[in-house]
């Protein structure tokens, strides 16, 4: 047998198999149970421990590529927060349209379902240029940092929630940040959470997740959700099945397929090495 072939499978076949393996579970879900990690448990508990009616600052700092991993976190957060009658203030600094649109859509969907009103129970400030400088202004003056208007350009004075939220320093109880790069959790940590000693939690895309671990261990992040898996765990804790849990079977199949190809590639490598020695 020509073992070397195992090392050089046509990439088109590899791509087709990966695509198929990830698509099939979307149509025929298996529903494997998802074990909850300590980090996801901490995120849930930090929000659960907030007094009812607290204000949570939600920054959906994502681009369109990572949005499918992070959107379910926003939906689950809205469900947990509104259940506790918490108020949500949304921003997005990573991308000028993706973040603000998605934070609006995902909170709005839950708000309508739970009878919460825009401007009273939640608001979307949206994107502002130069995250670092804006965050520093938001710390003491949310109205100035936001330029006096929400994402749609409506004056903040017209929204009852903004009578309660004048500054992050005095009026915000928790920061929940989703992150795919910079600006992201590190920016919030540097300019807002650390100077004000505000609890900071949220979630990161899986590619960034390894980079946040040491901040979780140091206590600078109060737990953190990692990718779609983290979102699925959080959904499970909040008690509903959303996009996170729905994507878990596809993720399982995708990962298993890659592992199988790794094994095949290595078998081919070893056998051809052995043959070469002989």
């Amino acid at each position, binding site marked *: 047998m020509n073992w070397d072939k195992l090392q050089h499978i046509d990439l088109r076949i590899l791509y087709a198999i990966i*695509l198929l393996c990830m698509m099939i579970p979307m149509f025929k879900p298996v529903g494997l149970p998802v074990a909850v990690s300590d980090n996801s448990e901490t995120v849930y508990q930090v929000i659960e421990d907030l007094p009812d009616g607290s204000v949570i600052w939600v920054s959906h700092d994502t681009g369109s590529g990572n949005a499918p991993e992070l959107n379910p976190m926003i939906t689950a957060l809205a469900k947990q927060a509104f259940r506790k009658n918490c108020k949500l203030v949304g921003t997005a600094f990573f991308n000028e349209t993706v973040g603000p649109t998605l934070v609006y859509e995902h909170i709005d969907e839950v708000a309508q379902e739970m009878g919460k009103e825009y401007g009273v129970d939640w608001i979307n400030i949206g994107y502002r240029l130069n995250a670092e400088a804006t965050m520093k202004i938001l710390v003491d003056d949310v109205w100035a940092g936001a330029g006096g208007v929400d994402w749609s350009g409506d004056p903040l004075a017209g929204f009852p929630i903004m009578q309660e939220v004048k500054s992050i320093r005095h009026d915000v109880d928790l920061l929940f940040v989703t992150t795919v790069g910079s600006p992201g959790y590190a920016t919030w940590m540097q300019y807002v959470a650390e100077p004000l000693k505000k609890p900071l939690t949220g979630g990161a895309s899986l590619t960034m997740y390894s980079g946040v671990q040491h901040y979780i261990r140091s206590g600078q992040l109060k737990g953190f959700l990692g990718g779609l898996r983290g979102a699925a765990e959080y959904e499970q804790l909040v008690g509903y099945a959303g996009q996170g849990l729905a994507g878990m079977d596809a993720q399982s199949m995708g990962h298993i397929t890659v*592992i199988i190809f790794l094994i095949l590639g290595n078998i081919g490598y070893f056998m051809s090495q052995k043959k070469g020695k002989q």
Partner: protein
Amino acid sequence: MKRQLPILIVAATAIFVMAMKFVNFGPAGAAAIKEADVWIQVTYEFAFLLGAINFVRLHYGNVSRQRPKWIYSVVSLVALVLTCLVTLIDGVNGTIAMFLYQNIANRIDSAIYALLGFYVCSAAYRSFKLKNLEAGILLASAVLLMLAQAPIGDAIFPGMSKWGEWILNVPNSAGMRGIRLGAGIGAYAASIRVILGLERSWTGSGT
């Protein structure tokens, strides 16, 4: 003077911001820092303008000299002008501007990111070979974490996700701390060189 002036401005600004940060100058200092934040925001907007000018110069040059693949520069210029016009007429959050952004820019972004997943798979397949001990550790960690990040890992090997957590929490954290500290010290060193005028590559005149 053309070269010294930017270096002097950078040094003076950096020393001013550092002094305001580390020394308590009372309410006057706080007001000065607040003012500096506004200046940063304004400067940032100018940087965008500069970026746009450079972008136009580069692509206009490509088109006028008909450099290889100049047609892509035409597409870039048309996209820039069209987006600017639509946004100026329709507003930043206008229906057409949002439609263009969400249905062209964001879709392209999503597609490229999705393709990246396939490239990562093929790169892992082609390069993750058990050639030596280091490659073996890398391969074992990758497989373990892939299994740990998907429920199927726990289904095949119960407790796999806990092993994945341990890898992320202990060896990964240790490595990341080292990298972060190294990068932080490097950034300090680079900043001091810029403040002292020893590092001048940013002025376009070399070190």
